[in-house]
């Protein structure tokens, strides 16, 4: 029986660590940001197979490079000099795609029709980022990408897409969704009836904890 008790103790300890640290974090939020929520941002809930959540979708990298993704910032994130030197140029045969690097990212909602997110600041450590009442801070992965010119879609005769310059971007947010509880989801689903776009909006108060935690404090 001692082995089963050991396994049970492991479950209890692992759950305890997560629950206690989350409770401590939520007891003292460090910053708040108010964001717009559209129907397209909602995932799951009800009888769906997906858990109810608010999706954080980063807009395509059409804006200028945010602070922290310049040469000095990329160096601070640990990218190799060869990769940094290739930024802004076309990829040649000697270029090797570097592996993504973890970073802290400050995000702000864009005022476009879909209210997606744009990275406004990137840093290797959280305390290096600024804060304001319109932005949230999450972890992310910075990777190198290649811009393409020409018509989108599969290349066909006469419609050739050509590779453009290499650029760094926030490739992934961690977490990429924020959990919504049952009541929050019910309220948002009931009040955001349009299934696409942002014709109707509601607001959510997002809290950032002192140790990097993030959660949806309330919706209205």
């Amino acid at each position, binding site marked *: 029986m001692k082995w089963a008790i050991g396994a049970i103790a492991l479950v209890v300890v*692992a759950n305890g660590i997560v629950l206690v640290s989350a409770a401590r974090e939520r007891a003292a939020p460090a910053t708040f940001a108010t964001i717009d929520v559209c129907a397209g941002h909602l995932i799951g809930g009800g009888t769906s197979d997906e858990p109810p959540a608010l999706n954080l979708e980063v807009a395509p990298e059409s804006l200028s490079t945010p602070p922290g993704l310049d040469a000095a910032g990329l160096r601070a994130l640990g990218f190799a000099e060869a990769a940094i030197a290739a930024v802004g140029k076309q990829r040649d045969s000697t270029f090797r795609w570097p592996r993504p690097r973890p970073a802290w990212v400050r995000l702000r909602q864009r005022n476009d029709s879909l209210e997606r997110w744009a990275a406004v600041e990137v840093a290797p450590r959280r305390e290096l980022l600024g804060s304001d009442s319109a932005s949230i801070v999450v972890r992310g992965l910075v990777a190198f990408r290649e811009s393409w010119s020409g018509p989108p879609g599969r290349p066909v005769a006469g419609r050739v897409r050509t590779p453009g310059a290499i650029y760094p971007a926030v490739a992934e947010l961690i977490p990429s969704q924020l959990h919504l509880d049952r009541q929050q989801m019910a309220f948002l689903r009931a009040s955001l009836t349009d299934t696409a776009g942002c014709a109707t909006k509601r607001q959510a108060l997002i809290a950032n904890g002192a140790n990097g935690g993030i959660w949806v404090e309330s919706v209205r």
Partner: protein
Amino acid sequence: MPSADQLRASAIIAFREELARLEAEGVVALDPATRDRIRAHQDATLAALAAGGELDLSATAARLSAGMRVATLLGTIALSAAYGFFVSSHWGTLTLPLQLALVGLPPVLLAALTHVAAVRERSGYVASLIATVAAIAFAVNLGTLGQLYNLPDSRGALLAVGAFAMLLAYGYGLTLPLIVGIGGVGGWLWTLGAIPLGLWWRDGFTVVEPVLVVGLLALTAPAWIRGPAKFANWWRGMGATVLVLGLLLVESNGNLSAFATTDLHAIEVAYKLLGAVVLTGLVVWGIRRDQRLIMQIGTAGAVFYLFMRLVDWFWELLPKWLFFLLVGAFALAVLLVLRRLRRVRVEAR
């Protein structure tokens, strides 16, 4: 893989059959007293072995056991899927305490049930199924807590689930949870390679060197981890497989190396040389230590390795028909070498 008890029982049954054959052919005639003594001793041994777990005492029983193992695996997959889908389909309608209970209680209850099943059903099939579902439920538990509290994914979950599965595997001598445990703890060790490289833990899986170390550790684990004798083959088998796959991957794609910032060609050549040494070493080790599984994995890896070299060297150079003729000749050469090695071993015995 048969347990040590099963091997002993099979040896006793084979001895009886061979003795009966020898007596029928008039080669030997044991006096009744000696035969009875041997029979009584073997009966007592079989009874003692059978008390320690279910044994296959005939070919039919062995086939039924194989069926039970398949049923265990299918049952584990089906029950785990049922639990996962049940959680996800009811998740959005539950309050937080119910959500926590729904994911927190199953691994606890199933761990306790594993103990009950192991005590009541000595074959271990039911306990193995329950323990594996418990480990998967624990993984669901940790993953769901991460979603509930918007936590970043973590390599710690791999270690926790691996350790949980290992506890149940070693506590009750269960093979399927052992495989989950080796996968979890091995995966955790693999991702540690991301730390010195400054990568996110998941990107540690794109670096091969740590997994080579994990493979070596697993290969040698039976020497420094005590446990049921039947576990040794699983440790060695999984270790050798990981080692072989890791080497085959990195020698053909230097980008998977931690040293990929330097000359890729040099890295690939270095791993080709290392691969030749390690694969040969595995085959020799398997033969010398009489570990058939290691020898088979090493041989499969070596054949694939040599096939890839043939492609590298001759695919562009030779007409297709000649290339495949060469591969066929190479396969025959491997057969001849292995046959010769087998004959040497048989003669040595």
